[in-house]
């Protein structure tokens, strides 16, 4: 029986606490964390090095915001799955993130269960 290779997960958030929390709480066997970045610019560099399949992306960050980063990541790898994890709770922001290429949106604050449900739903499209 062949084992299925895990999908590579990159975490992008300017909060170390949130980065660690996502890393700690994601219980999905199919995901393996390959790195974390604190802003959009770092994320682009890390993306080149690690070629992740799945990304969690904050929106409000210094250097380069998440919306711009989503667009750039999708341009480099259209098949990448991106879950936006942001406190920005207005509908227009979620709609724009999806329009730029994100595949899902999870609003902060979130429970571990909400995070895992959102990632599970995301992976159903993989």
């Amino acid at each position: 029986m062949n084992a299925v290779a895990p999908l590579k997960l990159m975490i992008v958030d300017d909060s170390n606490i949130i980065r660690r929390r996502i890393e700690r709480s994601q219980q999905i066997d199919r995901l393996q964390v390959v790195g974390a970045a604190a802003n959009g610019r770092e994320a682009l560099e890390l993306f080149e090095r690690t070629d992740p399949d799945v990304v969690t992306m904050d929106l409000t960050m210094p250097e380069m915001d998440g919306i711009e980063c989503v667009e750039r990541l999708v341009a480099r790898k259209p098949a990448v799955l991106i879950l936006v994890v942001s406190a920005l709770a207005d509908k227009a922001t979620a709609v724009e993130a999806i329009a730029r290429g994100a595949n899902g949106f999870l609003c902060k604050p979130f429970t571990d269960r909400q995070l895992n449900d959102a990632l599970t739903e995301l992976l159903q499209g993989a």
Partner: protein
Amino acid sequence: MLTDAEIRTFVDGATHYFEVAARQPAAVGSPYLATDGPPAVHEYTGVIGISGRRKGAVCFTAPRSMLMVLLMRMNETDTSEANMRDLIGEVANTISGNARRDFGRDFVISAPSVVAADDGRFVAPAAARPFVIPINWRSHSAKLIVCLE
């Protein structure tokens, strides 16, 4: 000046934050307008600058003891100074960002900046008077300060 409905947005935001992130509700007290100078702050203050259709700042200020317990409730074992500062900024960011549900996307929020209470006072934007929302959680007291033109 904030309307009652706008103040309610921030009260609800603070309530929601503790219910979800800390998995333990906070008692959010009656908001009041700071009339006797700028409100005193605790050891850590996270400040979110607001621009766009509204201008000003949203601040969450809390003592170290509260942040320590909050980190533990999040299963975070790293209680370093850096993580304390990170947390205070993240709380301010989350409550401010959630407010866009009511204020809309023209309520533009900055990345958080964190200040230690060297002078013990919050410096409000010149043209706005700060509303203070008291937050009591477990045995700790904190404040959400909303200051919008």
